[in-house]
């Protein structure tokens, strides 16, 4: 029983990273800006978030710093793409490289080499009255604030895309920016906003990695999760309700791979650790037919 609860709660923790990141990617992608730079944002916000949380002793300020760094990356992406019409993928790749350099540099300059790795302040756990006292359920429900923030973000995103006028317009921009422009939607401004807010969400996920999961910062902490989240966004056909499914799926695979690695003696552990990466490819192969893309992804918008 404890195995199952620990499996579920661990999965939830990793699913938070995957889901928040892919929600951020989806928001930009829905307006036509494909945020390939997610991995770079995760790294940069992990280091910024950790350093700020560590220095201030306040977890919340750490997450805000992570979100702000994410927003800054989003702004650079939207600005260079919309103003200079540079290919989004090239920009994204450069930003990934930029983010990975920035993360280690920041940590080296501000924290430096210590004998014992500095610890981040603790993120408070949500306890729901009555339910939290029941043995098995409490293991599942007693999660930190950011896990609940992730659920909230999924619900808000769903409501936004399907029930609000702005959300429908956002989807319209992704499909046909010219038509959206004709009916009076400010395409450029929406693209900026969506990319910046989306990247801020990715920034929260990035700060979550060192502050809540590992407690310390280490180089290359995101370990490819930014790119796997792109896989999730594509697999989800840019729908938030499917992104959380994908998030849990990949998180589950990751946690299982960890567990199997510990149990198995005959198969070298490296092959279990390959599982998450291989399953991204397998899942995308299986769901090839169901995958849809917003039509204007990758193209800068101009009125002529």
């Amino acid at each position, binding site marked *: 029983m404890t195995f199952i609860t620990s499996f579920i709660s661990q999965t939830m923790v990793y699913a938070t990273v995957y889901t928040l990141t892919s929600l951020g990617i989806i928001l930009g992608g829905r307006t036509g800006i494909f945020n390939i730079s997610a991995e770079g944002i995760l790294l940069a916000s992990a280091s910024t978030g950790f350093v700020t949380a560590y220095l201030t002793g306040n977890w919340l300020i750490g997450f805000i710093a992570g979100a702000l760094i994410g927003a800054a990356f989003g702004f650079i992406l939207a600005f260079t793409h919309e103003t200079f019409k540079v290919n989004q*993928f090239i920009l994204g*790749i450069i930003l990934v490289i*930029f983010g990975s350099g920035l993360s280690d540099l920041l940590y080296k300059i501000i924290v430096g080499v210590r004998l014992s790795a500095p610890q981040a302040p603790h993120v408070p756990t949500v306890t729901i009255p009555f339910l939290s006292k029941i043995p098995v359920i409490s293991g599942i429900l007693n999660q930190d604030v950011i896990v609940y923030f992730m659920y909230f973000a999924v619900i808000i995103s769903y409501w936004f895309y399907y029930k609000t006028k702005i959300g429908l317009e956002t989807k319209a921009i992704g499909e046909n920016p010219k038509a959206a422009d004709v009916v009076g939607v400010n395409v450029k401004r929406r693209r900026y906003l969506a990319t910046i807010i989306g990247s801020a969400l990715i920034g929260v996920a990035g700060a979550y990695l060192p502050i809540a999961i590992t407690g310390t910062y280490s180089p290359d902490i995101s370990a490819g999760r930014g790119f796997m989240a792109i896989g999730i966004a594509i697999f989800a056909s840019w729908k938030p309700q499917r992104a959380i499914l994908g998030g849990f799926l990949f998180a589950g695979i990751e946690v299982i791979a960890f567990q199997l690695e510990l149990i198995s003696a005959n198969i070298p552990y490296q092959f279990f650790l390959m599982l998450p990466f291989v399953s991204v490819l397998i899942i995308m192969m299986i769901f*090839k037919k169901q995958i849809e893309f917003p039509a204007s992804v990758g193209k800068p918008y101009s009125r002529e």
Partner: protein
Amino acid sequence: MKKKNIIQKDLGTKLLRSLSVYGLALLIAFGLISIIIALLGFSVPEALKTLVTTSFKSAFGFQETIKKTIPLIFTTYAFTIPFMIKFFNIGAWGQMLFGGTAVAAVGLLIGNFGLPSFIMIPLLVVVGISAGGLWGWFAGFLKAKYDINPIISTIMLNFVAVLFVNFIATSPTFKDPLEGHPITRPLPSSATLGFFHGIPYSIIFAILAIIFVYILLKKTKLGYEITSVGYNLHSSQTYGINFQKTIMLTFLLGGALAGLGGALEVMNIHGKLIEGFAKTSGAQYGVFGILTSLVVAGSPTGVPIAAFFMAVLLVGADALQRTMQIPVEMVFLSQALIVLLIVIIRKKFEPNGGK
């Protein structure tokens, strides 16, 4: 006569334009770097001097530069060739690792047979090329048959390759029992290449690769197909060029070159497989290859020169860390910044060129 003049004039303005692109980008970038260095409390003139001149001040500096140039040429080609048809091979890292690992494993397995160098070395080179090529081709295959974005597939394959290196370097069959870090036993001397006055012999393979790529792209039907798909996908398909095949071929070629780069690192620089061998100055050769390729706008002819200049900066970055304690990431970050500026400025000057 008149026609020739127009062409010359065109070439002149083109040259002037690209010179001004690089000049302007470098000026802004060095300005920014100077500001950051000054903010961090280091001496700006000294840092800039170290960054640019270390490669040319001593024989050691120059040898180091060549050692870094060789793998960079391979990883830059690995990105450039698929980029010619507008696909992104982020997997040079993994392809290099896979090539190097295969070479180490095969080299150690057949090492006891006592094969002479003239069999061993060509054999291992072929193994490296095939392993890297296979790893690259697979990403192309996933794009052609399953429409999986190569950015994602190549990254996933990178991580698999990293774990594969760890598997080989820690397995009892190959691991050096005296080492704590995952490192294999040294390759037999018949499988390693030497140095000529500090310059690795792998430079011969790099020169051969440059000639090969040039001939392939400029003089063969296949090269023509790649170029025409890059210029205009639609019309190239009308003329019967198989797009799916071209995708797989460009990734195969890119991966094979990166694999050769990895093989040569193992056979020449290290003489064994060391975990994390495809890294230099704080990041992977694959990443620097991407940056180098973007500097020359994915044009294959500019690759060797650009790789050399990138290597000069990397040697300078190492020296900065050694002598002034400026973290290597600082230079790495600035390089990403410079490339971003070059890409933007180029777009501004030549709106239709530069991809």
